[in-house]
Each structure stands twice: as structure tokens, then as C-alpha cells.
């Protein structure tokens, strides 16, 4: 079975632009979570989706939004990019909630210049 896949792997954007990151969970997993990891720090929770509904939101501005599709894949959108948005964006897949083992993709490295 394929693991969690994220695309693209690397991305360079200019300040003020918009970006869309994509994630496909493991087959059979219904929950997807997004995390931002700045270099040298632990991941910070952005969103969790389950069965296409938002179940949790971290302390991020409204420029960050996400959605989950009927096939359980997910998109993370960031508008009006700032230099501080440069980070590794990680997607995690779980069967249901986060109390169980979460499987992570390799992430999307976003650089804002």
C-alpha cells in the first residue's frame, strides 16, 4: 500500500502569492491533519479534517485554509504569503482521531522569497 503522499515536494513562491499544497492519505484512512514545521522546531498543528469536516484548528491566521475531498485527499491553501510562512508542511493520515498512530508524508518544503 502506498504511504501518505504530498505534492509538490519543493516550492518557491513570492511574498503575496497564493499556494496550494496537496495530500493523499493512506488508503482506508479518513482523517488528515496538517502541520507546519519551521527549521529547528517541532511541528505546529494547523488543521485536522475527518470525513470532510474540520475537526480542529490551530492558532494560525485566516490566510490558512484547508478542505478534504470525498476521496479523503486534502488541500492546504495559504493566501498572501509572508516570508515567515517558509517552512516544511507536513500532512498526517490516521484512521480516525489523533489518539492513534499518525503516518506522515515527506512534506512540502515551501520557501517564500
Amino acid at each position: 500500500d502506498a504511504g501518505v503522499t504530498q505534492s509538490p515536494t519543493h516550492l518557491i513562491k513570492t511574498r503575496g502569492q497564493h499556494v496550494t499544497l496537496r495530500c493523499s492519505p493512506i488508503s482506508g484512512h479518513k482523517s488528515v491533519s496538517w502541520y507546519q514545521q519551521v527549521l529547528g522546531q517541532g511541528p505546529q498543528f494547523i488543521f485536522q479534517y475527518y470525513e470532510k469536516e474540520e475537526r480542529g484548528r490551530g492558532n494560525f491566521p485566516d490566510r490558512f485554509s484547508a478542505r478534504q475531498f470525498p476521496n479523503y485527499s486534502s488541500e492546504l491553501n495559504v493566501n498572501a504569503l509572508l516570508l515567515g510562512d517558509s517552512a516544511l508542511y507536513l500532512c498526517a493520515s490516521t484512521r480516525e482521531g489523533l489518539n492513534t498512530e499518525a503516518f506522515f508524508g515527506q512534506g512540502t518544503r515551501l520557501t517564500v522569497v
Partner: protein
Amino acid sequence: AQKVTQAQTEISVVEKEDVTLDCVYETRDTTYYLFWYKQPPSGELVFLIRRNSFDEQNEISGRYSWNFQKSTSSFNFTITASQVVDSAVYFCALTGPMDSNYQLIWGAGTKLIIKP
């Protein structure tokens, strides 16, 4: 509020030495879950272990072992006979009942360097 502290920023040991990574957590919940993840240079977080708050039994998996002590709010991770392939950043994480707003709370990580 929930918090995870990994006080060791970086640890460097010579191959075959034993090494312990410390994790201290704070939570008011009586039901919670603790995790350890490994992040190699490739960036992907690899699940190592999950422990719930009602199970204080220590666990051993090959060269890896975990010591969970509720009395000191610690969940330490020991690698026995370390190998170069163990070099990575290791994260301890915590989540509470109903997923505490559905998020994992992460420590800052400990960078482990195993020298040949």
C-alpha cells in the same frame, strides 16, 4: 495547558554507546497519549511508539526502550548500542482526550548524532 519539553537540544555519542532522550510533559487531563517520532534528514516523521496514560509498563522493542513515569511526568526513550542509522531528530508528543482540539502537542526535538 498542555506542554512537552525536550531539554536536550542535541546529543552526540559514539556508535555502540547507549543514549537516553528525555521528555517531560504537562497536562491536566487524566487520559492522555504520548508518542515518540523519529525524523531523519529526509523529513518524514516516523512513528515509534504510542502510550496511553493508564499503561505505565515500560516497553522494549529491539534496541529501543521507553520508560513512562507518571510520578515525574516523564516519558524517556533509550537507544541501546546506538548505530549511525539512529542519527535523526527525535520528537516527543502529547495529545489528550477527544484529541484536545484534535492536535498533537510536540516538543522541540532532540537532534541525535551517532558518530562512527
